[in-house]
């Protein structure tokens, strides 16, 4: 029997490297670096990512920015964590902070500055072959409320002038901030929705679903409609005023597109805001948002909106401003 001694030397080497690693880790821990940690909503993510990308080019790598996607709620969990090592400097949020999250922040001693950075318009879409152009909020409610389960299944049941065809519904799953907002505004209660529709957390699945079924209807964030205009048709929404409004940059910004548009936010840890690199980043964010936000398919605030946000940041206005 012959043995290859070399391979055993290698194995011993590997084992000793592992041992060294185990010993070295605690020593390394104490070192710091200029790092800005951001996490949170997937709706705000593309904007923050674009800003982070440009910011790092601008700073020539002197400041490192990381952006994660753990959802608005998951982001706040880290933002307000008791454990300083997982706490983020900035949290992306597609809604304002909830009371329970405020309490968590308070318990952890985290104070924060809330800044709106863009609008998100939830867009109701149908197939391009669908004759319907506009819907009222009432009609959407008839279609989506929990009572509609199994009973309302045809377009003509919602509005007698619509085709006598069965509809198929697509929408985000119950974990999504878009779902929360849509149900709140349409059915009147957050989380109350019919359940016999096709849910997906992946908005591209919803796009495919509506694009391939002539009698389908779905809803999702504006940027997904923007990128798929050739396949889908947006439905104008009538907020009971008799005037149906299509979602667009203008109608969202001037507030005509109601009730499905909402501001989206970033939350900044007040302590981190004292650090020069975070301060630079936020100022860079607000200065470049009006250019970068449309590039990723979202709707920017008007210029005065960003100026107000900047003033809010520079004056260190703590807490949430939302009285929505």
């Amino acid at each position, binding site marked *: *029997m*012959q*043995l*290859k001694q070399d*391979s*055993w030397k290698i194995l011993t080497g*590997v*084992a000793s*490297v*592992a041992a060294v*690693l185990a010993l*070295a*880790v605690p*020593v*390394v*821990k104490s*070192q710091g670096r200029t*790092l800005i*940690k951001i*996490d949170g909503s*997937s709706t705000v*993510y*593309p904007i*923050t*990512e*674009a800003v*982070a*990308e440009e910011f*790092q080019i601008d700073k020539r*790598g002197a400041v*490192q*920015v*990381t*952006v*994660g*996607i*753990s959802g608005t709620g998951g982001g706040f969990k*880290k933002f307000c964590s008791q*454990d300083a*090592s*997982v706490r983020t400097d900035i949290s992306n949020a597609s809604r304002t902070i909830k009371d329970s999250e405020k309490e968590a922040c308070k318990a952890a001693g985290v104070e924060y500055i809330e800044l709106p950075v863009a609008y998100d318009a939830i867009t109701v879409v149908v197939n391009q072959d669908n004759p319907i152009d506009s819907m009222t909020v009432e009609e959407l409610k008839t279609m989506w409320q929990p009572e509609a389960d199994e009973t309302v299944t045809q377009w003509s049941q919602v509005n007698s002038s619509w085709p006598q065809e069965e509809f198929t519904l697509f929408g985000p799953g119950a974990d999504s901030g878009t779902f929360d907002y849509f149900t709140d505004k349409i059915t009147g209660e957050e989380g109350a929705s019919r359940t016999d529709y096709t849910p997906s957390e*992946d*908005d*591209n699945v919803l796009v495919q679903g509506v694009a391939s079924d002539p009698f389908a209807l779905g809803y999702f964030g504006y*940027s*997904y409609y*923007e*990128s*798929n205009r050739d396949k889908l048709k947006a439905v104008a929404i009538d907020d009971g005023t008799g005037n149906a409004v299509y979602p667009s940059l203008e109608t969202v910004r001037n507030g005509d597109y109601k009730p499905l548009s909402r501001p989206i936010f970033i939350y900044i840890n007040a302590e981190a805001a004292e650090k020069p690199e975070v301060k630079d980043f936020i100022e860079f964010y607000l200065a470049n948002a009006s250019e970068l936000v449309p*590039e*990723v*398919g979202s709707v920017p605030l008007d210029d005065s909106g960003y100026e107000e946000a900047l003033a809010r940041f520079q004056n260190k206005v703590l807490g949430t401003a939302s009285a929505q």
Partner: protein
Amino acid sequence: MSSANLQKIRADIQRRKLINTIFALVGILVIMVAILTLLGLTIQMVIEGSSRLTPDFFTSFPSRRAERAGILSAWVGTSLVMLVTALTAVPLGVAAGIYLEEYSRKDWLADLIEINVTNLAGVPSIIYGLLALGLFVYKLQLGQSVISAGLTLALLILPVIIVTTREALRAIPNSLREAAYALGASKWQMIWDHILPYSFGSILTGVIIGLSRAIGQTAPLVTIGALTFIAFLPDSPIKSEFPYISFDWLQAPFTVLPIQMFNWVSRPEREFEMNAAAAGSVLIAMTLTMNALAIYIRYQLRKDVKW
């Protein structure tokens, strides 16, 4: 024997042969369906992503512009995490396997451990993520870093390595152990000089199965805080000044290929789907390379072991 009887027997044989052929055909059909589907999916992905597989794709950071986006931070992250995983899981797993198979007494405790280890191999990976979040990130304060991720995946594949190591050791005939003892070898000499080298090939197979499982994981890494956008690399492990080696990279934030792929697939812009396909091709290539390497090493080692 009457001719009628003979005919009956012949008919019977014919029938059996027919059944045999039918089963063989069904078997081929089943394996073709499985392999062709897999092959079709892989080829389609490679074709879709091929136009993005340029050198730039490997040396650029993620970007909001599909044509400028690359996988530099993702493939470096995946490689570093896998390095930590391999360096911890392999020595630990093989050592545990050796202990359980060669040293421990075969009593109820060993049975209990055996059942638990086998069951652990089937635990959903997200559970390991939650465990790691509590243990590595919060308790041991390792942060949301390469080392946390590597250790998490090491935990995940440890049972696989332990089980395959034990299987490999069990396959070595007892006569070899006895022969070693007869020549005056101690237990450790017997294991180190004989049993381990002969079973190395099979152990390596287990290691590769484990690492291949680890490389595609997303859920446990998202749980411990893997990032999606990261446009810088961890510190280099080699430094120009004393002590020349740095372990800062262990503490660095990271992302991995599967997470980068998922992010691209879920983007509104369709151009990113090409990027995702290209990243998927790279991931498959990395896994296949790992497998090929293992097969080659195993072949080289087996050549030297002559019974």
